[in-house]
């Protein structure tokens, strides 16, 4: 009796297996014929993986050859073979890793960005799902299928990481040279012309206004600001814009000197500036509070960036929270940099990165840097027409943020003409003014286009 029941069950089981195999064959054949979209390859639904895993024992009766072919077909190598763009993206990530490790191009950020780029382009891994952030909104209802990088990316999407980094930047910045020479703020403002000139250029190339603004902000030479604005206005361009911003920031010593030499005479480059006045501790303490209140009241959209920058600076200057100041300068900044780098790199999927837009962004980025540097130098020359105490125009180029690299470039180029000339502290004024200026520009663009 038992034997009959078992035989009957076995019969049903075989029937079910046979029907599954019969139905799945045409589907498999269809899948082979259809060209696979790269976004499908990258954004593998973990549920579908789980389902196929549970079905695996039922397909155990299929011959070894078929199973092996199916297994090989499911590997990342097969997916790469079907979509060449993934291979190109992996090669680009390797190139960026090379630049970060061997050439030391902004390694603190380029290394995590490159690794994030590599991780997101590993087909089938499902670490990052761009669909969760499609159309500029977070699709919370789909977060059950999110990968590791999706969760970390929320920090970028919600504008948390750039602000945390700004707290650290503020804690590491000495605004003393700026307080001692407030005219530096004008040079910082002039250097923002790179942002707005590039905005016009990007519009002329056919970009939409919000995309053009995100591309223009590369000219501010401020990574966190660029990421903050782009994540709000054009998140689909985050990968190329972040890569362009950080790559060009690393290339400041290459990009700026020819522009500085072309726009100045030998005599101008040799100008020695008057020593800066001393700045009292009280001034340094009141400065961040005053700037945070005034700028935030004038431009509420810039409040997150300026507020965090000035909070970090107040921690430094007040001297009463040394532990907090050290933490934001080191641990908090480093942890946020890791998360920011990996997740920004993760947005550089094959579809988002390998297109003409990326090439145009890279091209516009270098123009933005050039315009910004030139704007600062030219305004310094213009100010010299009226001012009694001459300004060395070389410090104008430091008005693009890139702290402290741009100020160092002014010092080096200045010493080529006059080895006894120390421009570093004078250049730090426009340099930190550039940080405030680019945050203000980002706030303006956000309020106009956001």
């Amino acid at each position, binding site marked *: 009796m038992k034997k009959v029941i078992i035989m009957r069950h076995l019969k049903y089981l075989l029937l079910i297996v046979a029907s599954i195999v019969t139905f799945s064959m045409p589907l498999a054949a269809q899948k082979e014929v259809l060209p696979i979209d790269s976004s499908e390859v990258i954004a593998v639904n973990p549920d579908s993986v789980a389902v196929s895993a549970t079905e695996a024992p039922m397909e155990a009766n299929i011959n070894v050859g078929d199973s092996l072919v199916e297994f090989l077909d499911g590997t990342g190598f097969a997916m790469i073979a079907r979509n060449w763009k993934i291979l190109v993206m992996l090669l680009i990530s390797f190139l960026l890793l090379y630049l970060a490790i061997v050439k030391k191009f902004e390694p603190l950020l380029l290394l995590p960005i490159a690794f994030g780029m590599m991780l997101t382009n590993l087909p089938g891994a499902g670490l990052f799902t761009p669909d969760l952030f499609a159309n500029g909104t977070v699709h919370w209802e789909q977060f059950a299928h999110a990968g590791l990088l999706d969760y970390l990316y929320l920090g970028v999407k919600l504008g948390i990481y750039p602000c945390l980094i700004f707290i650290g930047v503020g804690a590491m910045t000495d605004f003393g040279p700026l307080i001692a020479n*407030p005219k530096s703020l004008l040079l910082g403002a002039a250097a923002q012309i790179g942002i707005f000139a590039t905005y*016009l250029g990007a*519009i002329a190339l056919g970009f939409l206004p919000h995309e053009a603004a995100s591309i223009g902000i590369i000219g501010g030479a401020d990574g966190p600001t660029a990421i903050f604005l782009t994540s709000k206005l054009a998140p689909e361009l985050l990968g190329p814009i972040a890569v362009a911003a950080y790559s060009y920031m690393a290339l400041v010593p290459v990009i700026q000197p020819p522009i500085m030499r072309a726009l100045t005479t030998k005599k101008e480059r040799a100008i020695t500036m008057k020593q800066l006045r001393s700045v009292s501790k009280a001034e340094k303490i009141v400065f961040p509070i005053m700037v945070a209140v005034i700028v935030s009241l004038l431009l509420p959209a810039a409040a997150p960036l300026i507020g965090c920058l000035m909070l970090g600076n107040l921690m430094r200057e007040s001297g009463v929270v040394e532990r907090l100041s050290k933490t934001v300068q080191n641990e908090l900044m480093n942890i946020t940099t890791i998360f920011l780098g990996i997740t920004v790199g993760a947005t550089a999927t094959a579809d988002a990165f390998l297109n003409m837009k990326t090439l145009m962004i890279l091209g516009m980025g270098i123009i933005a840097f050039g315009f910004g540097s030139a704007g600062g130098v030219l305004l310094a020359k213009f100010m010299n027409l009226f001012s009694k105490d001459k300004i060395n125009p070389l410090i104008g180029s430091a008005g693009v943020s890139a702290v402290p690299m741009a100020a160092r470039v002014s010092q080096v180029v200045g010493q080529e003409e006059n080895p006894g000339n120390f421009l570093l502290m004078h250049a730090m004024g426009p340099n930190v003014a550039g940080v405030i200026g680019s945050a203000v*520009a980002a706030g303006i663009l956000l309020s106009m*286009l956001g």
Partner: protein
Amino acid sequence: MILLEINWTNALNITLLGFGIVFVVLCLLILLLYIFGKVMTPKVRVPKAVRTPKGAKVEISDDTEFHKVQLPANASAAIAMALHLYYSDVHDQDSHVITIKKVERRYSPWSAKIYGINNLVR
């Protein structure tokens, strides 16, 4: 053709307005910093007249040597560095004996001579 389709009025408005606002905001900060500097800069009060040891009052004018003193940048930097080293305790207190370090031996039964001698006696 693409260039003609673009709304240049909007683009130029955003550019000029945006750049203008950046300038206005930063100029406002410059103004505040100047006022701020005037109010908060530590002022060195120069007396208008001093009394000589004999009790005679001497007026100090701009030609007096006192006003002509201006330290060169190198000297200021050296003084600043010395003060920094002094206040952050980086520099040793010079005791005019730079080859011999003073070593304070604190009493401890583990290193006391008396116990050492006793041990040897045993």
